């Protein structure tokens, strides 16, 4: 009797341990992520300027926000940037992974070369990129000294094209990482299926299109999560590369939010923009997470 009660207690304890183990992480995330999100949403309805303050102003910050042409520019830029960045990184990453998967000699040397940009922060590489893109000293100048006088590459100085230079530098940083994810996916594919398909006379092209790429679905999804989170957080890059310029042509929501919250002392408007950003992220990520997680059950 006593023994079985004891065993009972033990199983019950065993049932609680997993939850106990999970709870610190969960508690921390609830407070430090979700609590802070609520706080920030609350601030967006207040007259906060240099520090949080609690005078309720209703929707005033939001109406001011939408009057700022600067905010619209940053939203448009986010659209262009996210679309190009995610597509290009995925395409280049997949392409390189497929090429590297062809029993390439020197793969061990090439792989770290593709991966290393991820290890560097833009505080480090920003200046180098800035110089390289600068027509007076960078690529354009080099081409001119090599005799190609008509060569022109002044995107970073042009307010209609500067955002594409931001895309270029961002793709440089992460496409190698995406390559690694796809390469891992490719290496995980069972060769027997491929051999069987080859017996049936399938061309390489068809092999990839019909069999291999569909099997990479999980890799595509992981890449999407990582890339979209990096796109939303893009901040250092813009600061280091263009400082938001020329004019305000390369502002992104993250830089907008930072500048209103911290350098312009308009914390209320900054919080309003943060709230809108979070809602946009939720609108994209929640359905995605929902479908992903439900499927895995």
């Amino acid at each position, binding site marked *: 009797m006593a023994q079985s009660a004891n065993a009972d207690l033990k199983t019950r304890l065993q049932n609680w341990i997993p939850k106990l183990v999970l709870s610190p992480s969960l508690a921390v995330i609830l407070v430090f992520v979700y609590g802070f999100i609520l706080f920030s949403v609350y601030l967006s309805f207040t007259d906060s300027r240099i*520090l949080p303050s609690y005078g309720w102003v209703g929707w005033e910050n939001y109406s001011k926000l939408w009057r700022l042409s600067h905010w619209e520019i940053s939203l448009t830029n986010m659209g262009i940037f996210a679309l190009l960045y995610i597509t290009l990184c995925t395409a280049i990453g997949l392409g390189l992974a497929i090429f590297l998967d062809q029993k390439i000699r020197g793969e061990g040397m090439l792989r770290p070369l593709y991966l290393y940009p991820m290890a560097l922060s833009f505080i480090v590489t920003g200046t180098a990129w800035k110089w390289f893109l600068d027509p007076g000293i960078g690529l354009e100048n080099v081409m001119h000294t090599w005799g190609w006088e008509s060569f022109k590459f002044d995107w970073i100085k042009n307010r209609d094209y500067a955002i594409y230079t931001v895309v270029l530098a961002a793709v440089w940083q992460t496409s190698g990482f995406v390559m690694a994810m796809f390469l891992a996916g490719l290496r995980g594919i069972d060769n027997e299926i491929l051999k069987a398909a080859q017996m049936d006379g399938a061309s390489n092209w068809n092999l990839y299109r019909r069999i291999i790429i569909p099997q990479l679905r999980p890799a595509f999804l992981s890449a999407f999560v990582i890339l979209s989170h990096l796109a939303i957080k893009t901040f250092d890059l813009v600061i280091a590369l263009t*400082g938001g310029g*020329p004019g305000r042509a390369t502002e992104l929501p993250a830089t907008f939010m930072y500048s209103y919250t*911290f*350098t*312009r*002392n308009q914390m209320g408007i900054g919080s309003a923009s943060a709230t809108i950003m979070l809602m946009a992220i939720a609108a994209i990520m929640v359905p995605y997470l929902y479908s992903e997680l439900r499927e895995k059950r």
Partner: protein
Amino acid sequence: MRVFTKTKGAIVGALLASTSMAQAADVEVLHWWTSGGEAAALNVLKQDLEGQSVGWQDMPVAGGGGEQAMTVLRARVTAGNPPTAVQALGFDILDWADQGALANLNDVAAKEGWDAVVPDALKAFAKADGKWVSAPVNVHSTNWVWANKAVLDANGIAQPTSWDEFVSAVEALKAAGVTPIAHGGQAWQDATVFDAVAMGALGPDGYKAAFIDLDSATLGSDAMKTAFDRMAFIRDNVDDNFSGRDWNLATAMVINGEAGFQMMGDWAKGEFLNAGKVPGEDFLCFRFPGTAEQVTFNADQFMMFDQGGEVSSEQAALASAILSPSFQSAFNVVKGSVPARTDVSDADFDACGKQGMKDLAAAASSGNLFGSMAHGHAAPASVKNAVYDVVTAHFNGEYDSETAVQELVDAVEIAQ
């Protein structure tokens, strides 16, 4: 708003009281002077304090002309762990004073006689509600033009003294195939030029009405349109590659004779001196044409954070060391700026420095000393940045002058 500020002040005060006594004999100083010359100059202050056995905990955070440091300061104050002294500019000091976070330095000021030697325009930022809250280190002025003397001489150009003379000088340089104006296209640099141009176009009264009193009629006036037209002229006479360039690379263009003029604050002098150039012989420094009488200034100060109700002896020692004539002279000779007190000897300064000190004293006594819009000494940060937005958009061709004037009126209104 007022009510909330007061309660907030109380909270901040309480936080300070509970946490700031940790390091008894040290001062922790947050600043953004990290490059060679500046930092070395600040080291003079550190050694001075160490001589009085006050330790110096250095907390440098560079970036964006102090913007990064201000972000850090906000985190530090919110955490209840503010530094003893913080480098700050203009309206930021008044904002923090409003939060009730700063110490009252009146005793030190009375003992050292600060009131008599610091110009009134500067006191407007160093004192809040009649209390000294910060110690000014220097006065920079922003309406300077730097010119390569050899380039000017080769093209038969004399130092221009009016806008029209400046226009013909620029055109002569252009005709000779030299880039007339070296400029870096960053918002704050565009605005620095705009400071001087607007002062010239609007005159001192107009400048004050527009940027200090934020009078919308003046902001939308024809004179303002003239100012923007002149900015457009300057835009037409910089090289194609100006956008995003650091100011010191623009200065290098003048040093190397690739360009004739640069409009920039007096910190540019350091670059010339560093390249072994001599003022008056290799390069010229003069006030922006049409603003010879006026000085638009920005002043670095160290604001002192409240240490639980009283000024500690270390803090007092720091404050009085900052305003001592010997430090003021030693620091400013290196930094390119001029002392914040008007009774310091100019013996150690070079020609440009001497002129700067003379101009400052003259402008202070004739009421021609104004805070620089571009450097946060005319209006609060929100307005300053709103002006940046318009000036830089116009400079980059997004608006014509007429639209820019309207946008300026709008932007300043939203930002208030």
